[in-house]
């Protein structure tokens, strides 16, 4: 915030300005309260999981083979990674391509844009259980892929497509037209402008979308049970069935026998999401370095 240093005002000045503007003060209070509430709730949940899960984190949870004694989470962790990779490999090109088309190529009045936007928003609103039913009816039964990573990956790819598309679109829109005009003015073509100028500057927004998607993939249960199956070992190929961490947790918790380990798995899941967020923010920083 550059302007802050220019019109810096003292605390006292600010207070007196709030006396003249009670509404502003009220809004300030509201915003801070909302933030405090959010942080409080979120930290509460995180600590709740940690308190219940950390005491049950045992080395057995990370042994290479799942047995009923160690209820190892390692195969599930690997499967989750595979699933995230597979789903993103399908969804990211489509999502970004779609957003580029909408923002950079299509005319703003195009009817086609409206259809794409309407369908994307429809996709975003479809409950995961319906994706599960659809994936089961289409990929598993109609295409005869059986319960497999592939069927799960495609189902999830469709599910996260709108998230990636929407956030990319917003990020592309937010890129100032001056960038594009500058690039065109220097003689670059449309494609070069998109890939060299617009996309890199939209990277933080895009990666935010990808993070949200990864989160959704990692946390998904309802859509995967009917498409990817629940086999507790690392799938040999994409046509084999496997369980992701959250399905693993769902099943552990299910019969009330492994509740402690289920909480421990939730801790692993948290760590997982944390690592993914860290990596993606690291990548974003690398890409955007020297851009501004």
């Amino acid at each position, binding site marked *: 915030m550059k302007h802050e240093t220019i019109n810096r005002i003292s*605390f006292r000045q*600010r207070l007196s300005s709030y006396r003249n503007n009670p509404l502003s003060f009220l809004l300030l209070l509201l915003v*801070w309260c909302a933030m*405090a509430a959010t*942080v*409080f709730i979120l*930290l*509460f949940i*995180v*600590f*709740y999981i*940690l*308190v*219940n899960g950390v005491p049950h984190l045992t080395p057995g949870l990370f042994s290479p083979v799942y*047995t*009923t004694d160690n209820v190892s989470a390692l195969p599930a962790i690997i499967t989750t990674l595979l699933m995230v990779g597979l789903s993103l490999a399908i969804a990211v090109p489509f999502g970004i391509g779609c957003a580029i088309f909408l923002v950079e190529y299509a005319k703003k009045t195009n009817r086609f844009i409206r259809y794409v936007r309407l369908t994307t928003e429809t996709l975003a609103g479809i409950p995961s259980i319906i994706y599960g039913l659809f994936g089961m009816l289409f990929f598993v039964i109609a295409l005869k892929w*059986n*319960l497999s990573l592939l069927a799960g990956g495609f189902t999830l790819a469709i599910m996260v497509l709108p998230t990636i598309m929407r956030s990319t679109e917003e990020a592309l829109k937010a890129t100032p037209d001056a960038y594009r005009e500058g690039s065109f003015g220097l003689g670059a073509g449309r494609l070069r402008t998109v890939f060299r100028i617009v996309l890199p500057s939209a990277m933080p927004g895009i990666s935010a979308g990808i993070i949200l998607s990864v989160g959704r993939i990692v946390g998904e249960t309802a859509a995967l*049970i009917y498409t990817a*199956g*629940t*086999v*507790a*070992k690392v799938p040999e190929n994409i046509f084999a*069935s496997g369980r992701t961490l959250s399905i693993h947790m769902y*099943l552990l*918790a*299910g*019969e*009330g*026998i492994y*509740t402690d380990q*289920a909480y421990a798995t939730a801790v692993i899941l948290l760590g997982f999401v944390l690592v993914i967020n860290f990596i993606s923010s690291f990548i974003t920083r690398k890409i955007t370095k020297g851009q501004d």
Partner: protein
Amino acid sequence: MKKFATIAVAFGLLSAILAGCSGGSGSATATPTATESSQSLGEITVISREEGSGTRGAFIELFGVEEKDANGNKVDHTTEEALIANKTDVVITQVAASKSAIGYISLGSLNDTVKALKVDGVDATAENVSNGTYSIARPFNIATKGTPSEVAQDFIDFILSADGQRIVSDNNYIPVDANAATYAGTKPNGKIVVAGSSSVSPLMEKLQEAYLALNPNATIEIQTSDSTTGMQSTMSGICDIGMASRELKDSELAELTPIVIAKDGIAMIVNKENSLDNISSETVKEIYTGVITDWADVA
């Protein structure tokens, strides 16, 4: 302004952390201090399972919650006020967290966060189920279509052998045949898929591990879903053995051959702070049909 803000936030975070810790640890180590007289607990929180659940099916049938009407049609009279839990652990967690709750679960899933009631004066134990004094039990079925593959047949032989049945009783389920012969397998090669009921699959996983220790040539995959999916997968040939925690339906019996591999008792559970120890099956029925709604009326 900034400094003030930072301090305020730091304080907020700190209190959040403290609250989080106390809340979390409090619920984690819920040690009952004193058992309350059941009469003073007020309105009963009735917890049931979803329609179609093998546990619920057996429960409503055994306690007479399901009755035939004048036309001979079966009607499930479970009170509309009953909370519906979709998993065994949800029932346990609900009962553990609520003093006024009552629920029913598989005997094999019983743990010490809740209290199992005697029904008509009989303890809910595997022993009492197998000698017939505790009559609230249901079968664990597996089903195959046509002639099972060599591995599937060998695995079934193992389950029904003395070795397999010992694993059944070790895990608090009730063996079907106390005098089975020991397993003398042929150790065939191959891969089979077992799919179905989430109630049966914890037991099936134990059986599978023991079997694979004896026959390393085989590969067994277990898909955990539910009884109906398991039966349908078996009928369509996606899996070799289906698991069901209920009796098979007529449409399923037309295509599949069921085998009972174990029996499972159903335990009535209440919160540990509830002083009630024994409940009559008639009372259970009245609670679940909504006739009795307050603990004060429980005799």
